[in-house]
């Protein structure tokens, strides 16, 4: 009889503990980001970068638990579309995908430039001046879709850094890249292309969350971000990482 009671008790404890774990994990938000120097970087020991700092501040202020996972962008988008308590950032927020997510942003404001090879100068007054030139960018990037929509001659790579080599070997005329990432990639590749020929586009990048994310959680994150702009946190962090316009 005692054995049955003990078994029942143990079952209850197990049930309650499982239930508690489940409810904690259900309330936790999984945030996907991707290797995106200098905004988000995963080293052996830890995560670092402007995006990591912003995520931490955002969720702390919203009083929400979270964990960050590094994965390729496409995987992050897939996971976000699949599960309710999942977000991914930074994502270029555009009208085409506005209805697919619940948005928290802007987290980053990015400018994109057209870089020519080290030894070349291709003066551009308007983007249209580059119409006859081949432009390198990378697969899945918002800027490749943007240029493609205007029927520019876009050539895609799997990694953005490869475009620097392609420029060097004259396989493309111009490289379309986000300015701050471009600097970091140039340093990594030990090649300096100088200033862009033309800074032609500005994009808003935000955190995209599953469209079924609880309304109150979404609102808490939106409010926290608003507060971060209002009290100067975002201005300071933009300045610290050289991301101010």
């Amino acid at each position, binding site marked *: 009889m005692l054995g049955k009671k003990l078994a029942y008790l143990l079952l209850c404890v197990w049930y309650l503990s499982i239930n508690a774990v489940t409810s904690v994990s259900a309330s936790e938000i999984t945030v996907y980001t991707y290797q995106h120097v200098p905004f988000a970087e995963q080293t052996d020991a830890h995560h670092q970068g402007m995006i990591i700092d912003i995520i931490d501040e955002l969720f702390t202020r919203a009083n929400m638990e979270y964990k960050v996972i590094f994965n390729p962008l496409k995987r992050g988008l897939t996971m976000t579309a699949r599960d309710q308590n999942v977000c991914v950032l930074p994502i270029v*927020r555009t009208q085409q995908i506005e209805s697919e997510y619940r948005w928290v*942003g802007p987290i980053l*404001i990015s400018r994109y430039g057209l870089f020519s090879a080290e030894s070349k100068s291709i003066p551009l007054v308007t983007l249209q001046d580059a119409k006859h030139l081949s432009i390198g960018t990378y697969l899945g990037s918002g800027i490749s879709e943007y240029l493609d929509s205007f029927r520019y001659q876009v050539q895609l790579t799997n990694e953005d850094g490869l475009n620097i080599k392609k420029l060097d070997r004259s396989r493309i005329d111009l490289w379309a890249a986000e300015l701050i990432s471009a600097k970091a990639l140039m340093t990594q590749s030990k090649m300096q292309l100088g200033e862009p020929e033309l800074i032609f586009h*500005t994009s808003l990048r935000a955190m995209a969350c599953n469209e079924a994310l609880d309304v109150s959680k979404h609102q808490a994150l939106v409010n926290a971000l608003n507060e971060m*702009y209002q009290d100067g946190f975002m201005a300071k962090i933009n300045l610290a990482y050289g991301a101010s316009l």
Partner: protein
Amino acid sequence: MQKLIPLLNTSIVIITKVLLRVVVSVTLSTAVVATTVSAVEPQIFDKADPQGKLLVNSQLDHTQQDTYEQQLNPQQLQWLKSEFQPSTLSLAEQKKEMLWFQHKAQAFKGMEIRVVSERINTHQYEANVLAKAFFDITGIHVIHELTNEDDVIKKFSAQLMTGQRLYDAYISDSDLIGSHFRQQHVMSITDLINHHAKDFTLPTLDLSDFIGLAFTTGPDGKIYQLPDQQFANLYWYRSDWFANSDYQKRFESKYGYPLGIPQNWQAYEDIANFFTNDIGEIAGTKVYGHMDYAKSDPSLGWRISDAWLSMAGVGDKGLPNGLPVDEWGIRVEDCRPVGASVERGGALNSPAAIYAIEKYKEWLIKYAPPEAKQLTFSESGDWAAKGNIAQQIFWYTAFVPDYTKKGLSVMNNDGTPKWRVAPSPVGKYWQKGMKSGYQDTGAWTFLNHTPEENQIAAWLYAQFVVSKTVSLKKTLVGATPIRQSDIASDIMTEQAPYLGGLVEFYRSHARDVWTPTGTNVPDYPGMAGYWWQAISRIIEGELSVTDGMNALAAQIDQHLIRLQDQDLICGPKVNKQVKPSIWLNKPGSPKQLMPEEVKGKTLPFEEAINAW
């Protein structure tokens, strides 16, 4: 030392590129440097309107002092002689305008400024051609970015939220006028002209010539935005099919009245049924009597918030938007929004609004191509140009250039279209004296916090792209006229047969009763998103039309309530909820249910035009 090598390389690259740039810059500006010195006679301007008089007074002082010491170089003259023709100005007058720009831009030469607009043909022309001409003439480098319409609004909001200077100026729709005058983030054009940029205002700007100025003027009398392009939403139909005697006989024998321009929604519905179901196929191709779009997307919101409810007759009489209840169903008392739901005196969930959405959904399902439900605004844009659509009740005239290309199946060999635009039919709740449709102007908008020299340089570019020197050519490229002088020109008379009724619309009084979102809407960027989300749930069947509109009205009410806490000029002061019958029993909007149907009515094209 190894660490120094990349730095050294960087320096060499930068120095090399700078040297290359100097060479390029010198080459580009050689002609400017080499120009001969010559004085230009100061101009005296005669304007009939008050703002014009003000300009005359202000300009006389400094134009008399000005002696433009440069002439246009051959490259700059080439812009006038080739690209900027035709124009309502003579070449000599164009030259004077361009010399004025060149002279006033001297202080800003070498500056780079950044502006943004949506990506319709008119703005592509500006970004690709006019920005380049402006650079050649003034030395100011304008990066004119193009993006989707909703993105323009998002970027505008982001600049306000973050305090970062994304752009020096925006071209955004005048739908935001209710936000601009209340929130005061925008430097008004009136203030620019009279104070901040007084010495940099084109003497021949001629404000009274702009046909859309009323759309961008707040209740306080200030002009908040300068029109750059203007478009209307009209009824589009295949005039060749409507003229077919066999179709005419068959339609009249079945429906009891002639096939013609529908004057009401019942006639539109009958014609939709006639082509989709009675005719069905023409020359072996399936044809449809209706085209629309309904994908869950921000553009789905504009499909309804851009005057669809006013066309149904939801609002009150009174132009431009209905007073005191407008096409968003928002009631305003003493300039303060007091509610959108019937329970608070609005009409967003009124019987007329529910009728409007029911008809939108019913026609989409019954008469449009099955693909329409999965299309966005831009994706649906060229559908009717493929040649299998008989009519479209909600068609933007910004598409005219895409519908008049040679070789399209909707074009005749002589370059005239097989289609026409006409006044939009109206719903059963509509009464004379009410707004009849949607028209808007994409207009230059300047934020207060923009640094003064960037703002003035952007102001010069804005005036350049709307100047009389370039505006007629721009109108011919984009079919989005902004100036009365262009609309009245002989060139537009010559072009009229090739533009399917667009010129007739803009020469008629109809352009006064086709209006944008009005001043009842206090926070367009913050409230526009509710529309597409609500309509999407209705289209997907998640909510009934009644429940969906009740939810939308409640959301708009709540937003108005939240705005009460902000210190806005003419801010909302929301009414308490009462029984709907209390408001429905009062005269005007919200209107009681009209169960009876009306008989379809059509008119021949000429009579429909005369009705304008």
